[in-house]
């Protein structure tokens, strides 16, 4: 479970301070998919990177399974799998070599790495591609390898930042199927996306961000009823519009 309480984060430059995340709070539960939605620049990636221990909050508390992301960062990293849509794996290493490398970085025993690699290759239907150099794989299979990398150490919490951006339809389906499977397995999944149709299909709870603020947060169906909207897209645009009119 992830708990974010009053999280604020800003980026300081020589000339100014940009407040990217402003006092947001939400909870993502085990066995559910939490969708963090918002336009570009809303603060989604900063929030997810803070949860993933890559950034430190200016204020507020973020915990993963009760562990503080600042003071217990190494333990937190052991529990999370992090995948970003920006990631473009490339190079001459094969999927097998890459997974072994990340296994070493996670200080996993060799036999555990081999077992996990086989499990993931079977689950993601990529066994036949394990010994092909990454540079020669299609975008879909490369994305499967990326997923395998982020889940090799059997994390309980999965953080996917725009995992389907830049992917074709087939590769998008692979990611969607995997998120459903992770949810079924009782994992806590946090997904950031600007593709609202994906979010509507996959998420149990959503939080809509705009200009660093969390405009609403809660179970998807409950939010739709509360705001009298038919779907997530309508809800999203109404809230973002209201956010612009009443900043």
């Amino acid at each position, binding site marked *: 479970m992830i708990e974010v309480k009053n999280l604020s984060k800003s980026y300081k430059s020589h000339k100014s301070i940009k407040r990217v995340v402003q006092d947001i709070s939400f909870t993502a539960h085990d066995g559910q998919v939490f969708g963090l939605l918002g336009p570009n620049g809303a603060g989604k990636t900063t929030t997810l*990177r803070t949860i*993933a*221990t*890559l*950034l*430190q909050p200016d204020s507020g508390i973020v915990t993963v399974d009760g562990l503080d992301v600042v003071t217990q960062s*190494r333990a937190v*990293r*052991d529990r*999370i799998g*992090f*995948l*970003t*849509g*920006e*990631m*473009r*794996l*490339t*190079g*001459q*290493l094969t999927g097998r*070599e890459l997974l072994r*490398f*990340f296994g*070493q*970085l*996670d*200080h996993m025993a060799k036999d555990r790495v081999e077992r996990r690699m086989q499990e993931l290759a079977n689950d993601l239907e990529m066994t036949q591609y394990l010994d092909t*150099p990454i540079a020669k794989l299609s975008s879909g299979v490369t994305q499967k390898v*990326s997923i395998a*990398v*982020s889940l090799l*150490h059997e994390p309980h919490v999965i953080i996917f930042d725009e995992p389907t951006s830049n992917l074709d339809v087939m590769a998008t389906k692979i990611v969607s199927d995997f998120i459903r499977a992770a949810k079924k397995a009782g994992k806590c999944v946090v997904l950031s996306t600007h593709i609202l149709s994906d979010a509507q299909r996959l998420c149990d709870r959503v939080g809509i961000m705009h200009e660093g603020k969390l405009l609403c947060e809660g179970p998807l169906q409950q939010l739709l009823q509360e705001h009298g909207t038919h779907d997530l897209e309508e809800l999203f645009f109404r809230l973002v519009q209201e956010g612009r009119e009443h900043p």
Partner: protein
Amino acid sequence: MMNDALIILNKELKNLFKDKRTLFSTFLLPLVVLPIIFIGMGTVLSSMEKDAQESTYAIAIVGNPDPLFSDLLSAHLSWKGTSPEKADLTITFPPSYAPGTTAQVILTFDSSSRKNQYASQVATQVISAYELELARKLLSLFGLSHEDLDTLEVAYDDTASEAAQSGGSMLAMLVPYFMVIFLFAGSMNAGLDTTSGEKERGSLAVLLVNQVSRTSIAWGKILYVSVVALCSASATFLGLLITMYLPSGSAALVPGGLEGVAIGSTALWVIIATLLSTALLSASVVTLLGCIAKTVKEGSSYVMPLYMLVVLVGVTTMYMDPSQNVLLFFIPIVNTIFMMKESFMGMVVASHLLITILSNLAFAMVGAMLVSRLFNSERILQTV
């Protein structure tokens, strides 16, 4: 920490050795480019020289019908007489010239033609020989020979080391320049790809979310870039050795060839130690700039001025002798070049070597600490 750094190094090297294009630019290109340049140059130069020697030149001799002069010219050059308008070379004596009198001889030729340059050089030698012959005739009238005028003889006692005398000084001029250039060029590509390149590909964030400390990751990357830089410099050195031991390459590298040159084991160890410290320094600086940059393009704009500086240092120190000024050995790159010059000329000073290595390592450590600091800060992930 080092074990984790070695995991990074191992992965990066494995990726490098499997990438044919990178292997070509890092190892094969430095290995073959110098032999190709020098052997090509040697072949072209010897072919041009042969052509110049075997050509028949149209030469006009004005104001000196003395057959002795034309015979001497024929002995050195294949030529045929012509008018000044059609001549490749015109040798003009003053209108009032008579053999034995003092006169200014004018050689008229087009200096943009290499063959005409050769003809003018031969004509100059012929004029000197003609002058000598005339002097002999004049001296014989007084019962003297030309040798009677040579009362002093100059002998040279060269105190340079054996290595320097046998062509080592020529190597000391060229080799350090090429090696430093290729060492730096090798670290540029690898250093930027493994830092700002990883930022652009989004793989750095994933690398940072694991159980390995960020300091280890920083060191792993610096070690990797050092290894690549060192391999690139070693390939350059090997290329130069190949050039040295091929006759046409050796002749182009140093006039007269380098048959007598041998690099001793001490010199070799000094070169290796110097290059190791320089590789570490170059790697830490390039990695630091790559970490500061948000993209490879931005990183290139930071590294290029530094590369130009290295080239400038290489060029300006090319014709300089190894310095006795100890302070220069504290300056990176300058110290590397001077240390290699000392090695090739067989005049290594232990204190210079010590200062060079310590200075390079000190600068490398400062760079590595800054890289480590960046890896431990949020700034490492900035891409916009």
